C-alpha cells in the first residue's frame, strides 16, 4: 500500500518538507553568524514556556511562542565577544530549563501536552496545522529572500557592513526573532529536542561541501529534505519515531562527508 494512502502521512510529509526547508535556511545563517548555540538554546527555552503554559492551563503553543520570542529578545541584547555571549546564552538556557522542570513538577499529574512539545508528533499533525505551517514558512521565506545579502554581509563583517549603511543591530535582532518563530513552528512537529538537528546538521554539512552562499543554502535545504523524507519513510515501515532517524541519518551523513574529505585531503597531499 502507498505510503501516501493515509491523510496523516500526507500531512506529515507536507509538514516535514516545510520544517526541513525552514531549518536548512535558518541553520545556514546561524552558522554564518557563529550562533549555532543560540539555535540550541531557543528550543530548550521554548520547552520551558510550553510547560509553564500547560501548568497555567493555556495552550502549550502559546507558551512556546512567548518564551522563544522572549529568549530571542534576550539573546539579541547580549553584547561582547562570541565566547562571552555563548556563556550568557548558556545561563539563560539553564534558567529556562530549571523553570521548565519546576512547571512540570507543579502540574498535577502527567503533563502530556508539554511532553508532546518536547518529543514532537510528526505523525499527529492535522491539516489545519500544516496550513499554519505553510503560511508561516512563506513569510519566513520572504524575510530571508529580502535580507539575504545584508544579513550575510553583516554576519561576515559587522563593522564594514555598518559603515556601508546596513542596520546591523536591527537586522541581527530580526534574524533572532525569525529563528525563534522557526523554532516555534518546528518544535511541535520535530520536538524541541530535535529542532536543533534540523537547524544545524544540514547546514553544517552543506558549508563543508561548498563555500558559495547560494549553493550552500540550496544544498542545506536539499539535505534537510532528504533527511526528513528518508526518516519518515523508515519510521513508517518500521513503525518507529521519525526523530530518531533524522538525527541518526544526519550524523551518518556528516561523518561520511568528514571521512571523505579527510581521505581527499590526504590523497591530494
Amino acid at each position, binding site marked *: 500500500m502507498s505510503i501516501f494512502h493515509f491523510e496523516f502521512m500526507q500531512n506529515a510529509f507536507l509538514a516535514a518538507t516545510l520544517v526541513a526547508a525552514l531549518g536548512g535556511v535558518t541553520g545556514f545563517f546561524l552558522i554564518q553568524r557563529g550562533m549555532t548555540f543560540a539555535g540550541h538554546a531557543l528550543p530548550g527555552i521554548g520547552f520551558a514556556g510550553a510547560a509553564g503554559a500547560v501548568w497555567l492551563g493555556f495552550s502549550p503553543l502559546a507558551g512556546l511562542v512567548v518564551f522563544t520570542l522572549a529568549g530571542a529578545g534576550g539573546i539579541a541584547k547580549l553584547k561582547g565577544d562570541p565566547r562571552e555571549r555563548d556563556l550568557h546564552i548558556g545561563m539563560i538556557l539553564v534558567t529556562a530549563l530549571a523553570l521548565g522542570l519546576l512547571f512540570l513538577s507543579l502540574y498535577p499529574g502527567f503533563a502530556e501536552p508539554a511532553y508532546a512539545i518536547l518529543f514532537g508528533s510528526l505523525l499527529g499533525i492535522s491539516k489545519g496545522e500544516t496550513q499554519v505551517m505553510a503560511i508561516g514558512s512563506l513569510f519566513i521565506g520572504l524575510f530571508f529572500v529580502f535580507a539575504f545579502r545584508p544579513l550575510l554581509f553583516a554576519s561576515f563583517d559587522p*563593522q*564594514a557592513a555598518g559603515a556601508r549603511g546596513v542596520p546591523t543591530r536591527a537586522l541581527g535582532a530580526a534574524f533572532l526573532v525569525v529563528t525563534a518563530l522557526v523554532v516555534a513552528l518546528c518544535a511541535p512537529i520535530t520536538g524541541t529536542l530535535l529542532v536543533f538537528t534540523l537547524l544545524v546538521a544540514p547546514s553544517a554539512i552543506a558549508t563543508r561541501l561548498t563555500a558559495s552562499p547560494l549553493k550552500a543554502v540550496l544544498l542545506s535545504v536539499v539535505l534537510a529534505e532528504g533527511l526528513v523524507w528518508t526518516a519518515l519513510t523508515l519510521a513508517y515501515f518500521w513503525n518507529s519515531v521519525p526523530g530518531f532517524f533524522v538525527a541518526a541519518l544526519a550524523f551518518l551523513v556528516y561523518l561520511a562527508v568528514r571521512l571523505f574529505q579527510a581521505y581527499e585531503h590526504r590523497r591530494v597531499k
Partner: protein
Amino acid sequence: MEQTPSPPLLEFINAGIQLGGQVIQKGITFSLYREQFVAVLGPNGAGKSTLLKLILGLLKPTSGQIRLFGETPRTGNRRIGYTPQFSSLEASLTLRARDIVGFGLDGHRWGMALPNKMRAAKITRALEEVDGLHLAEASFSELSGGERQRLLIAQALLSDPELLLLDEPLASLDMSHAQEMVALVDRIRRTRGTAVLFVTHDVNPVLPCLDKVLYLAGGQSTLGTVQDVITTDNLSRLYGSRVEVLQSEGRLFVLGVDT
C-alpha cells in the same frame, strides 16, 4: 601637496569624542587632501579606530565638527572605502573570496544577488587591482592574514572611493609582507588619486610613501610631517612622560612607551 588648491576632502575642526563617559580625544584638528597618504599612529586605546568610526558616521563627535566632502559624515557613504581592524571578523569564515569582495559592490542592498556577468567582471577587476585574482575561488578561512587583508581592500575599492580608511592593515604581517602591502596601497592611491588614512603601530613600513602622520596619544593629537611629529620633545608632550626617538639606518624607534 602643501599648496593644494582644491578644498580638503576631510576636515576635523576641534572634534572631541567621549565613549561611555570617558574622554577618548579632546580636540582633533587636521585636514586631509586628495591623494594624501597619512599614517594614524598611537598606542593601544588612543582612539585610532574611534577616529575612523567618526569619519564613517558610526559615531558622532561630542564636541567640535567634522566635514567630509563638505558635509557631516553619515553611514552608507560610497565615497569612502573602509577595512576594519581584523578582530571584528567573528563569524564563521567559510565564504569564498569572490563573495566577500562582492560585498563591497552590493552587500548593503536588500534582496538576493543573482549571478551576473557585469558584477563578476567588476569583482575580477578589483581582485586584479590587489594582485589577488588567484585567490578568487578560495575560502576565506584558508587564507593568510596578508591575503585576507588584500581581499578586504579589494572589497573597499568596489565603490570607487575617494578616501580609503585602513585600520591596521599591517597587523600580523612580517616586515616584507608589510612592505608589499604598503606598496600596494601606495600604487592604488597614485593610480586612483585616492586619499589614504592608514592606521598602524609601526611607522617604518610606511615611511617611503608618507605625506603626514597623525599621532594620537593621551587624549591629544598632532598632525605633521614625520620629522616634525615623531620627535623626542613632541612625543614626550603627547604621552606626558619621557619618550626617546631614535633614528638608525632610516628607521625610527620610539623608546620608553608602547606605540
